């Protein structure tokens, strides 16, 4: 690994910044972001606000009016690959990101037909071959600026760089190498701004990358701290009070002791999902992913702290708690999934600050986010079978050996499959209804381990994976691979649930209009009644969806936007034209019918009631003939 990170810093003494210094007293960035997020004109981060609840108070589009939702305008990114995450909207502009080559575009919401600026980084083309599961990117982050410096847009690049772009001009202010592509480390996560720090995760566990989260100074790119998922405590950054409230989760020395020898050095535990932040507790939350190497027989032990829910101090990186959901993972249940924050009364009627995390392993966990207490752990679907239950007192999953992946055992119908019942989708929480709106994969798998000896002491341990719809799907026709559900974390009940043809891969958005929006792999954006699940509206997009919807107001009108562009893990067969059903760890077989419904694409589609918007006045954005009057 590189010792001295490369920094390229361009001087940016803009006149604007100087002017700002006189008008505004410095406001902490997170306070400014909280304020910006309160204004429905903005969607300042991938989860809308620090709660990562993807919930909007907007009501113009509601159960009655949603039928009138029509496209207002659209934008093509020019990239035909999986488009994850959402665009950001801040101060009248939309910032749009793309998968590799990770171009960023800014458009003015008044006239989005003209690109204000675009920034396409130069990247090592090898990044494409290193990425495991399509060349996706999950989004951008916005820093509002202060007295010294103007606003910035942060972008991660597949080749492992994090870059700060001037939000006004698109100029690259600095670029840092967060992960070395030459070591197989890529970057697909959306960066995350807290105060004057930008947080970035890491990808590449499949190649043995040891996962970490890093904080950089927003203005200079200087590294402030880096916290690993495995290894010695001082490198994992464990606070003195780490897991004090729940010592049975494990406390010190486990990042090395739960591994054989030095295996923690290549132990995985990257984080490429989503962050959430509690400005009062000063903690941010995220999940670390699967241990490496992939084959569990090669890494005896619990493999801490992979597969954990983390609460860390944003300023220091010190962990207050970590809860390992799947000790010694055998299924590739990488738990990087979204953390949604809510404040609710628990079963005893006590108001608590909670975080809710629909994990890849099929369990949806709710923790007290101040100390890590496990409040509930429910199966997202009753077909989850690798685990009988999660004991709330010990935090441990009670496994069913029938659905384990041990060497001498051909396991049939393990639910969920390696893709999880919930993957990277960014879901939502409706605080009015106290419901989490979950987009779910309904996929199970057969797992046939094999050990192939070869000559001279060589051998290879692997498994043949086949994936197919879960028991509630149509296994004969290989459809019925997804579900939509509305979950109450306190009662553990599903208010409603419906089946979908394919996985709901991208996530959901809930609104005070009583609607839950989401996109489907076969290319629809849909709106359901949040109370009943009834399908109220849908629209066919040019390509399948793996991102999540967002909404904003502009000049008093509510818009709903979503990326289209099929790809990601479910799309690898389609995107790379693979035929072997066991390829993509079985994804190719599971999604073999996807190509009958959609093809590649890439862009943003923006909707409003009756399609009203910037171009309702057809003169907007028209070519103006200079000197026309003189000619007349």
């Amino acid at each position, binding site marked *: *690994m590189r010792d001295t990170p490369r920094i390229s810093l361009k001087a940016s003494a803009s006149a604007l910044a100087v002017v700002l210094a006189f008008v505004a007293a410095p406001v902490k960035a997170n306070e400014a972001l909280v304020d910006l997020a309160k204004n429905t004109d903005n969607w300042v981060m991938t989860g809308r606000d620090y709660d990562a609840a993807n919930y909007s108070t907007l009501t113009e589009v509601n159960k009655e009016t949603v039928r009138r939702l029509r496209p207002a305008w659209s934008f093509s990114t020019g990239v035909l690959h999986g488009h994850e995450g959402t665009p950001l909207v801040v101060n009248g502009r939309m910032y749009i990101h793309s998968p590799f080559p990770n171009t960023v575009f800014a458009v003015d919401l008044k006239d989005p037909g003209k690109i204000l600026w675009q920034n396409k980084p130069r990247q090592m083309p*090898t990044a494409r*071959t*290193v990425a*495991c599961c399509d060349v996706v990117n999950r989004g951008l982050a916005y820093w509002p600026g202060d007295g010294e410096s103007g606003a910035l847009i942060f972008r991660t690049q597949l080749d492992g760089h994090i870059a700060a772009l001037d939000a006004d001009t698109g100029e690259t202010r600095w670029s840092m190498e967060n992960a070395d592509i*030459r*070591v*197989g480390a890529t970057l697909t996560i959306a960066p995350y701004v807290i105060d004057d720090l930008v947080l970035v995760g890491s990808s590449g566990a*499949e*190649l*043995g990358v040891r996962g970490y989260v890093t904080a950089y100074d927003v203005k200079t790119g200087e590294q402030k701290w880096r916290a690993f998922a495995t290894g010695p405590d001082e490198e994992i950054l464990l606070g003195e009070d780490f897991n004090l409230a729940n010592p049975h989760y494990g406390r010190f020395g486990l990042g090395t002791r739960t591994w054989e*020898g*030095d295996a923690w*050095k*290549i132990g995985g535990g990257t984080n490429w999902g989503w962050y959430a932040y509690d400005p009062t507790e000063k903690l941010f939350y995220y999940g670390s992913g699967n241990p490496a*190497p*992939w*084959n569990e027989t090669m890494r005896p032990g619990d493999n801490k702290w992979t597969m954990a829910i983390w609460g860390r101090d944003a300023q220091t990186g010190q962990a207050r708690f970590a809860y390992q959901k799947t000790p010694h993972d055998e299924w*590739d249940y990488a738990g990087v999934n979204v953390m949604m924050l809510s404040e609710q009364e628990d079963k005893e009627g006590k108001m608590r600050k909670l975080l809710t995390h629909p994990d890849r392993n099929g369990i949806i966990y709710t923790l007290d986010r101040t100390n890590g207490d496990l409040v509930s752990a429910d199966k997202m679907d009753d077909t989850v079978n690798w685990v009988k239950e999660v004991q709330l007192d010990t935090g441990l999953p009670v496994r069913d050996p029938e659905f384990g992946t041990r060497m001498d055992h051909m396991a049939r119908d393990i639910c969920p499959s390696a893709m999880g019942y919930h993957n990277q989708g960014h879901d939502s929480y409706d605080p009015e209804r106290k419901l989490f709106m979950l987009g779910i994969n309904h996929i199970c798998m057969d797992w046939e381990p*094999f050990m*192939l*000896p*070869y*000559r*001279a*002491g*060589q*051998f*290879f341990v*692997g*498994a*043949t*994976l*086949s994936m197919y719809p879960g028991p509630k799907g149509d296994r004969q026709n290989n459809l019925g691979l997804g579900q939509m559900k509305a979950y109450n974390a306190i009662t553990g009940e599903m208010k409603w649930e419906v089946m979908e043809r394919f996985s709901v891969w991208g996530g959901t958005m809930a609104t005070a209009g009583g609607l839950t929006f989401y996109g489907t792999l076969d290319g629809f954006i849909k709106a359901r009644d949040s109370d009943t699940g009834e399908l109220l509206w849908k629209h066919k997009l040019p390509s399948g969806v793996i991102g999540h919807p967002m909404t904003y107001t502009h000049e008093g009108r509510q818009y709903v936007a979503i990326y289209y562009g099929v790809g990601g893990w479910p799309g690898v067969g389609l995107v790379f034209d693979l*035929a*072997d*059903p*066991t390829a993509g*760890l079985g994804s190719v077989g599971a999604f073999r019918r996807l190509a009958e419904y959609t093809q590649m694409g890439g862009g943003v589609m923006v909707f409003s009631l009756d399609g009203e918007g910037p171009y309702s006045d057809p003169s907007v954005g028209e070519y103006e003939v200079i000197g026309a009057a003189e000619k007349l």
Partner: protein
Amino acid sequence: MKRIALRLIPAVVLAAAAGAPALAEEVAETPDPNVLRVCASTRDAPYSERNGQGFENKIAAVLAEEAGLKLDLVMIDNDAIYLVRDGVDKGLCDALIGVDSEDPRLLTSTPYYKSGYAFISREDRGFDGEKWQDVDREGYETFALRYHTPAETILKYTGRYEYNLIYHSSLSNFEDRRNKYTQIPASLVVSEVAQGNADLGIIFAPEGARYVRDSRTPLKLTLISNDLERSDGLIIPLRYEQSVGVSRARPELLPKIEAALVSGKARIEAILQEEGVPTLPLS
């Protein structure tokens, strides 16, 4: 005039066959007693390559001729590690030319040569190690090897494995190794040493011999003289006897192979010698 038939079985057919045993039986044919069906890989240089090249395919031709059989070389378009599962067990062929003498999946002939893991170094480095522990030397940091071999164990037991992991990934273009057989070509292990990118190569000598022989930079190949004892007491041998493997379904072939190994001994030794394979006395 050698009587050789060459058939190519694509990997796609094999993948389909792996999922459906019934199909594999359709693929299998009734064996012709006058034909020696040998499975060989298209990607196993220097043993076997596309178009039937490779020193083991030369040995196959010798054995067939000595046994008075027509050679049917069944080229499996996949890595050699799959030859037993996807070739012999599927009834596509009856023999493999190079297997460990103790491979329990096959009937094995009397060993016809013995070799071992070896260090490959540039002659100008003056490396004189010959025990596996000798990788732990001042100035020796980067080691080229092939995945899934005891060479990895050697690095683990000398504390050099993690440091080299990234380098090894680069030798296989960072290909995703999740549940996937990924391999570093033997020729690359040798050329990395020749170019000075690696301080030392660790490889099963028959796999590196040809490239050492042909290297423009003078290289030295040293057989490792001791075995490796794991912390759990298990001995990992670093020297292996090689036999011809015969399908358990075709036991009548074994005596013919044994006889051919005897009558063709000199010709086989000549092939190994030309290849540059260092051999050890058979026990």
